[in-house]
């Protein structure tokens, strides 16, 4: 492909099919993200101290509430009354997990002390 035609292409903008491809899920890219994140997760979690497995669970409660992203979109776009209501309920449920998850994790972690208070 010559430089001219590249410039032309760029000026004309991506063809409709390409735009469609970019907007719609690039299936393979998403699978790569899933694969890499899963392995990262497995390696990182294996190193978590057993002492902290309960705080880890409440922390991941909060992290899995990332579903708040999809919920906010529904509650904000308000395409139908039904989707708005379900979206808003989902935002409430996710936000509950986010707030309680992080607060509880921090509350528990504060209790883990190496030395007793007041003693050397």
């Amino acid at each position, binding site marked *: 492909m010559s430089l001219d035609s590249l410039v032309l292409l760029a000026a004309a903008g991506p063809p409709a099919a390409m735009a469609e491809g970019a907007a719609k899920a690039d299936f393979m890219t998403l699978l790569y993200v899933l694969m890499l994140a899963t392995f990262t997760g497995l390696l990182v979690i294996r190193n978590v*101290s057993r002492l902290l497995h309960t705080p880890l669970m409440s922390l991941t409660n909060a992290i899995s509430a990332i579903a708040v992203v999809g919920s906010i979109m529904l509650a904000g776009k308000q395409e139908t009354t039904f989707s708005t209501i379900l979206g808003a309920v989902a935002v409430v449920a996710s936000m509950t997990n986010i707030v309680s998850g992080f607060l509880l994790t921090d509350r528990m972690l504060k209790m883990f002390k190496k030395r007793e208070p007041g003693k050397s």
Partner: protein
Amino acid sequence: MNMDAVIQPIYLLSAMLFVLSLMWMSHPSTARRGVVSGVVAMVAAIGGTLLLPGYQSYHWIIIALVAGSVLGVPLAMVPLTAVPQRTALSHAFGGLAAGLVGASEYYLFLATDKHPLSGFETGALVAEVILGFLTFTGSLMAAGKLMEIIPTRPITYKGQNAINLSLFGIAILAGVFLVIYPNWWVLFPIIILLALAFGVLLIIPIGGADMPTVIALLNAYAGLSAVAMGFVLDNKLLIAAGALDGSSGLILSIIMCRAMNRSFANVLFGAFGQVQVAAGAVEQRAVKSATAEDAAQIMENARTVVIIPGYGMAVAQAQHRVRELYDALTKRGVEVKFAVHPVAGRMPGHMNVLLAEAEIPYDKLIEMEEINPEMPEADVALVVGANDVVNPAARHDKSSPIYGMPIIDADRAKTVFVVKRSMNPGFAGIENELFYGDNTLMLFGDAKAMLTSVVQALKG
């Protein structure tokens, strides 16, 4: 301006901070940094999402965010003995959110023609809805069992596994049909109902002692439903964060299964903890009991005392008395350590949190593998509310239901004290050989009251 150029880097930053957050959980000294990192990541994720174009108004978003925060605060303030049920409830909320978003996406597709669903998206949607709703009801059941609203013993009936699996099979089949014919809307509510029913039926036959595994597994499901949502919405952040959560739940459930020497299938379909009729036929053997004063005298002359806590300690709220005992013994120059079995309690790491709450330094909390070689050197093993995890039958009795499960070798200590209310068998209904050992002395009574008397005797 193209908002995507701003939002995508924010999402990338958020995903990176989530990974760091979990990385910092590797050690208590960095763990609180992990929470900060997680909070920043979540704020970035929400902030980035609010920047997306196409919103009609922010009313509902703001109201819902505030309502969720208000609900979240009391849920974070529960007593630490109630953390397992709080965690189960939280999985229920996570599952509900994913299920609702999935349902909403499907009905949007039906109501508006502008967004045709590809087969791949429908598949992800079905996965999201099934995982979301089964996590919702399953976690509610788990929470009910942990709160003892629902009987904690397994509820079983004939053909249970066949019924459960066929329900799940029908749901998957309906999902496959929906992928092929996305307009067969009648399939969709059927899938939802089946997922809801399957969640309930899956948890009913699981006993309370298996709750650590079940909670970890439901944690993984909540993560996986977020992954499926990410595929539906073409959102990489959802996939990354969901996968981190899913792998965390997976690893925790594997650790729990290994600590019981059981497989996933056995936990889910084995109905472990049924009343063992055969095991009930054990002849009445003599046990030796001792008083608090005897225990105090032996412990104060010991060099090392290993305390083995179990769920009974949590039930009796005895962790603060354990702490007093630790103080009294340490003051007399006795070395006190805590041996923590991975499945002690009702969720992974439950004992560690309770002991940390009682301000016992975490370097005194020793894992099973590290403490076992030291057990023959220990002068005293004090079992507080633990049962199956110290049952020597797991080592040699091939007919025992817990045969092969790694245990803490309490019986190898020179003297063993077991604090116990009565001789009733433990949660799993299995007779415990440890109680009949030559070197075992039973301390009958409520854990809290008994430990108080021991501490009194040490002081007096």
